[in-house]
């Protein structure tokens, strides 16, 4: 069974319709890369999956958990949205680490607050996750003392700490100096190899070729075409895709 199911997702900001009816099915352990020009709605799509943007219309299911959009903002609905968020990890372009907490405290925060994990258990879990992203020796550093690449890896560890069913990445390397991009992509590749389901919005073409099971090309709020990275990059069917690729490459 698919792990993510999106039906007829629409999102408008005022009169500006940014997503015009997206349908999307993602299988367990699938790695999907979303590409497209700026303003194509790719980031908005990702943010809608986590309800950081409230969709105007549509149905989102993650795992067994389904939220119909456009409902009233009552207590029951807030709980539903929170449950959905607990099942998804979200990685931001600007990291958004908690600056007043050390790396390990950042990673412990979720388990303690969301899952009610005991302090010592949370510390062991956080330490293991930081080691996994190659930062076992940076546990007690504050975000301001870490490089951008290190901060983004802490942010990934922080999301993993909640044991999500799917990881969402919103241009995870766009705010990084070129020499720091690799270390972050390596962590994402490792997760792909372990079978983590992931949706990644990125402009990193070679990375997409390497890890993506499927590449989705979006423009003007619709999915223009999708397929394996080979199909999209080497033999794009749509003119708009070809245009975009010729500019990016």
């Amino acid at each position, binding site marked *: 069974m698919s792990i993510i199911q999106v039906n007829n997702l629409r999102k408008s900001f005022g009169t500006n319709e940014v997503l015009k009816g997206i349908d999307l099915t993602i299988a367990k352990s699938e790695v999907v890369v979303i590409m497209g020009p700026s303003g194509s709605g790719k980031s908005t799509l990702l943010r809608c999956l*986590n309800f950081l943007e409230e969709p105007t219309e549509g149905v989102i299911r993650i795992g067994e958990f389904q939220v119909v959009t456009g409902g009233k903002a009552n207590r029951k609905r807030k709980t539903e949205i929170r449950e959905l968020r607990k099942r998804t990890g979200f990685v*931001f372009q600007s990291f*958004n680490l*908690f600056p*007043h907490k050390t790396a390990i405290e950042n990673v412990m*925060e979720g388990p303690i607050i969301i899952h009610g994990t005991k302090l010592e258990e949370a510390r062991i879990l956080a330490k293991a996750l930081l080691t996994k992203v190659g930062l076992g020796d940076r546990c007690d550093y504050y975000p301001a003392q870490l490089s951008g690449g290190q901060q983004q890896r802490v942010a990934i560890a*922080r*999301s993993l700490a909640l044991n999500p069913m799917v990881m969402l990445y919103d241009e995870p390397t766009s705010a990084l100096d070129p020499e720091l991009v690799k270390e972050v992509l390596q962590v994402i590749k490792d997760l792909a190899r372990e079978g983590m389901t992931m949706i990644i919005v990125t402009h990193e073409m070679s990375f997409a070729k390497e890890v993506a099971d499927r590449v989705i090309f979006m423009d003007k709020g619709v999915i223009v075409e999708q397929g394996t990275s080979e199909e999209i990059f080497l033999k794009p069917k749509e003119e708009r895709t070809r245009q975009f690729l010729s500019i990016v490459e």
Partner: protein
Amino acid sequence: MDVTIIIDSLPSLLKATLMTILLAAISIIIALVIGFFAAIARILKVRILHGIATAYVSIIRGTPLLVQIFVIYYGLPQIGISLDPISSGVVALSLNAGAYLSESFRASILAVDNGQMEASLSMGMTYSQALRRIILPQSLRIAIPTLSNTFIVLIKDTSLVSVITVTELLQMSSLIIAKTFEPLTIYLLAAAIYWMLITFFTTILDKLEVRTSKYLVR
């Protein structure tokens, strides 16, 4: 200038300083509570509370403290609310400082990057968990410099309460001058005491600012 006058009047002045500290301390605590909740009510846009908080801030900031003191001490008894001078002073001072603090708090909460709230919510935190654990600790650091301004003004403003017969530092100075006819000596002495008080509190707040900023070191 006679040194014996200083020595003779110092005990009375110091005793009156205790009243100044008491007025300031109680008012600061109440003002912090009022200011915090007024700020939260305005940020969360809680329907009725938001209107009340906005009106409160506007009225207090738009009228002189001296007028507020007179309204509370001389005006309210007319509708059956009689407060003694000290209580009137505390009410006026804390309502006044509370309005300014609520603006400081509001600005400092809004100054925390929106990504912090998004990151918290995306993990599945509730709004109030995010506010408590992530946003407020960061906004406190931002707020401290403006808090310390409000504290300084509040300590000075306690002198206005002398007009409703509270025997704090300024009132005591005037009483001593009536007996000794040494206005320059005594007022300078009072000024020195205010200066020491304020320096003491600002030093504490500066230390607190350094301590809460330690995570910003690179």
